[in-house]
């Protein structure tokens, strides 16, 4: 499947971008020409120069070094959230197809309950209770993304519950665990991979928007979203500054999405499976919109109109909401 995927031009480009990001994540701090935390406040908000290739930030720190050093935090946290979602979503999803109606019923109701929780508000709550650091915030985000994995995996697995070879394996006395491992898992994995790529790109954006809200990352640690947020506050002094972190975030999220598309095309995963998941998200979004008071419209800038990813749309809307409250 990997080979098949890589035949797509979009996949090749995406993988190249993601490999570059991975390299930055591993070696970013070492590559940083200067200490990303070192303040030389006398030279704050300077433009690009031979000493500071991307200029300095509001405390005179080297922006290039901050972006390079911030890659690891940005990427690992996105991975962390995806992994949590995978564990809490995919495993119960797979089991619910095989462990009988009671397990299925309870798991579904729990998932429904999780879906009613608003992502960013929940993340804020978690950081308030567990302390403001990235891991609790990412646990929260990952946990709330688990319904996506649960539904996608369950739907994919259900297809095989009554497949003839599964039934015959059962008649031969194979254990459930063996059936899942041998006959189902590798058929479901492409679907989960697509969901994971989607979820990772969403998580990357959430990490950025959380940093934007001052949640998760404890200053002065750099992240892409943090650099972007601070740049936006000093547009008078450095109008060009937000472009670099914004491009980094867009490229990575775009590459993950393109890769997800390529995996789906290559694996021939039933399109309806994914659309089932995203139509659920769309319903959720519609519900969220209903709850919004008239005249309480979020800033249009936060609502990516016609975005291909309703999950992200919803998250952005919440970000706009939270923004408003923190400004109050």
């Amino acid at each position: 499947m990997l080979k098949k995927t890589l035949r797509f031009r979009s996949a090749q480009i995406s993988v190249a971008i993601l490999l570059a990001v991975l390299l930055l994540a591993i070696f970013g701090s070492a590559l940083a020409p200067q200490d990303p935390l070192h303040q030389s406040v006398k030279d704050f908000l300077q433009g690009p120069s031979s000493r500071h290739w991307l200029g300095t930030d509001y405390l005179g720190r080297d922006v290039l070094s901050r972006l390079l050093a911030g890659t690891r935090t940005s990427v690992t946290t996105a991975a962390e959230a995806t992994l949590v979602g995978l564990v809490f979503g995919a495993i119960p999803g797979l089991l619910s197809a095989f462990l009988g109606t009671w397990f299925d019923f309870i798991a579904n109701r729990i998932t429904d309950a999780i879906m009613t929780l608003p992502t960013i508000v929940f993340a804020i709550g978690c950081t308030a209770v567990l302390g403001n650091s990235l891991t609790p915030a990412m646990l929260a985000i990952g946990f709330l993304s688990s319904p996506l994995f649960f539904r996608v995996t369950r739907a994919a697995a259900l297809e095989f519950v009554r497949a003839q070879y599964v039934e015959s394996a059962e008649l031969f006395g194979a254990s459930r665990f063996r059936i899942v491992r041998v006959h189902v898992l590798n058929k479901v994995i492409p679907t989960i991979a697509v969901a994971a790529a989607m979820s990772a790109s969403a998580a990357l954006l959430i990490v950025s928007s959380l940093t934007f809200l001052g949640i998760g990352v404890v200053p002065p640690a750099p992240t892409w979203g943090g650099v972007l947020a601070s740049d936006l506050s000093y547009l008078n002094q450095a109008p060009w500054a937000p472009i670099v972190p914004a491009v980094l975030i867009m490229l990575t999220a775009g590459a993950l999405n393109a890769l997800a598309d390529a995996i789906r095309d290559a694996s021939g995963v039933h399109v309806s499976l994914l659309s089932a998941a995203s139509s659920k998200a769309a319903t959720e979004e519609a519900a969220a919109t209903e709850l919004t008071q008239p005249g309480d419209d979020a800033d249009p800038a936060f609502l990516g109109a016609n975005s291909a990813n309703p999950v992200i749309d919803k998250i952005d809307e919440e970000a706009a909401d939270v923004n408003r409250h923190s400004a109050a």
Partner: protein
Amino acid sequence: MPSLLMPNEGKDHIMIRRPRHKRVLTAAAVTVLATVLSACNSGGGAEKASGPAGDNGTLNWEWDLPTSFDPVTSSAGWDAHVLGLAYSAITALDKNGNAVGGLAKSWKYAPDGKSIAFTLQPNLKFSDGTALDADAVKTNILRGRDTPDSRIASQLAEVTDVTVTSPTEFTIKLSKVDYQVPNLLAGKTGMIVSPTAIKANAAGLATKPVGDGPFTLTNYVPGSHADFVRNPNWFDASDIHLAKLSVKAITDQQQILAALQSGDVNVAYIAGSSVSAAKAAGFTINEVPSQVVTTLDVNTSKAPFSNPLVVQAINYAIDRQALVDTQQFGHGSPSFQPFPKNYTVGYDPSLANLYPHDVNKAKQLLAQAGYPNGLTIPLTTSIATGAVEQLQSQLKEAGITAKINVIPAAQFTNIVYIQKQPGLALDGTAGRESPLQMLEVLYDSKGLMNLSAKIPSNVQTVFDKLRTVPLDSPDYASTLQATVKAAVTSPGSQHIWLYTTPRILATSPKVTGLPFTLITQRFEGVRVAS
């Protein structure tokens, strides 16, 4: 018991304009992301108010909207600015912060200092036509003291009774000597609401104020804007040269600049970082001295801050001028006490350079305190970037590792002021009408901003003494300054003062005559050319 204390004023949490999390208002969330889509009533007054000819300008003021238009239930000290448009208080403050006549033209303390006889201006009327007389004042003071959800109750707790001797004369009786009352009554505590409106619908006052202020509210869209017209019946109406005044809440610095440039607002409260851009765009920059001072609240009940040497070391480790230069783009000045230089009566010049930046001295003090290899301290904030990062870096140079703990802005009041959890918290004060009230908020055992919940006995003594000194006594200023000095330099002092923040108002060149008032912004004498 110091009864003027106030867990009432909502939060004192700084409302300084900052590049990003500029203002942190109270929990009563005023939604302010609002763009000014609906704000299109710019330009001179089409409908002429009944003021003198030429007084038909419209002032559009970018500022926060209040948590409530009812002075009794308003929960943010910051609200006083806008409430002062709709209401007049019993007294007023001059530009230096001294009590002068307001609704009351004069007052006199009884020789024992326990009762004050006020004389109101004649023929006062509320905007609803009700007469503003001594009975109305009595109703208001008792309402402020007794209403269950009153946020000013503790300031009025020492009032035992109000007796009315004639329609313009009343006497406030106190349970103990307190010469600070006239100052206190210049703020929300002394704002007088129409008794007719209180009787009809007290809850409605939150959005429909009925007072006798320089302006009358005509239209209010919470979270967006409030429109006022000139009140021709106000006792000082001849000083108001504006036909209309609108308060518009915008928070984003870029949006504020855009609103200035489009003419949507002609007076805006901006951050230091926006000054050069506003200047370049042709706006006048007015740096109004204010009582906003940034501080670190120190919990001297918790180690290591219980050791005065550690607190002193932190004081020496901080480079305040660098903070002013970077955080406020040079606007404001380093501060070592709760009052700014312009508050001449309370500012103690001997504290002007109390802790000069001296890293070696800080290290030496730490060694003396038993931390020769430095130490780690917590640093709580709700504003995650900026000052707190710079402080952390400055402290590092002296061997102090500050671990930043970011708490949600909405929980600041609860975590810091009520639970008093943090050891060290970045905070700030917006000032109070009465200097003793301010000092008690900061240093008294029940003070909102005193995290240690303790007061050194020598400080308590000077507080009690200050209360008994009449405001017009020749000893008042020296006593107040001695009180400030005692509170600031006492070994268990609970604040590390950082810097003052001026109220930076960018105005269109058409706006003239903006008065520089220390505590609340006033508009007497302001004109807008058409």
